[in-house]
């Protein structure tokens, strides 16, 4: 089953909100497998005036957040997980080029495994057809994972 989510629909699956919602639309999602979408970068982003003055560039931490949020959508579109909050566990990220006002950051996230509340995945962010950032990520839905932990 492949879905697409507009800017309002994706909020059912991605609980972050302004100023921390880093994706604008999900053009394609196959629940439990992958999600694809984008974020448009405008001069009006709150961080551009300060990061940096006269040389605006999307902070790497927020590029990574965009990748993680797209991966979250790939997970939370599965049955009974709508609206679930995910936590980051471990990320490994590379930044290849600046992401600047006027860019469209195309994002593709893939689920490598989803097991007992832990997702291993990877994602890419592209601008103008080139990789701007990429990450391997480990995220969790804590309420699921914690059910399996020893009680000690």
């Amino acid at each position, binding site marked *: 089953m492949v879905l697409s989510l507009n800017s309002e629909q994706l909020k059912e699956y991605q609980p972050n909100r302004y100023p921390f919602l880093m994706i604008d639309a999900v053009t394609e999602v196959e629940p439990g497998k992958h999600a694809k979408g984008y974020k448009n970068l405008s001069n009006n982003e709150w961080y551009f005036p300060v990061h940096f003055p006269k040389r605006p560039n999307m902070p790497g931490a927020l590029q990574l957040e965009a990748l993680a949020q797209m991966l979250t959508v790939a997970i939370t579109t599965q049955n009974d997980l709508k609206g679930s909050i995910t936590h980051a566990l471990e990320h490994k990220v590379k930044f290849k080029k600046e992401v600047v006002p006027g860019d469209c950051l195309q994002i593709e996230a893939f689920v490598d495994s989803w097991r007992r509340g832990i997702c291993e995945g990877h994602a890419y962010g592209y601008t103008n057809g080139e990789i701007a950032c990429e990450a391997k990520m480990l995220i*969790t839905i804590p309420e699921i994972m914690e059910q399996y932990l*020893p009680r000690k």
Partner: protein
Amino acid sequence: MDTKLTYDQVFMDSFSVSEDQLCADLEYNSIPEWDSVGHMAMIANLEDAFDIIMEMDDIIDFSSYAEGKKILEKYQLIIS
């Protein structure tokens, strides 16, 4: 398959411990690597190594290196 060798190797690989650390004192949260994420990774590695799927209660009860051996008997695995 040498089940003990496999069992020990999973612990050593999952938690980056040496063979001499595999003892009754090795339990959940006794070392930094055996935290919640480490626990889930170790369980997944055991399942892959032994081609089993563990039940939820067994995953919860798997609180130590020693206890794990007893639990795996339920899956017809004798770790001795």
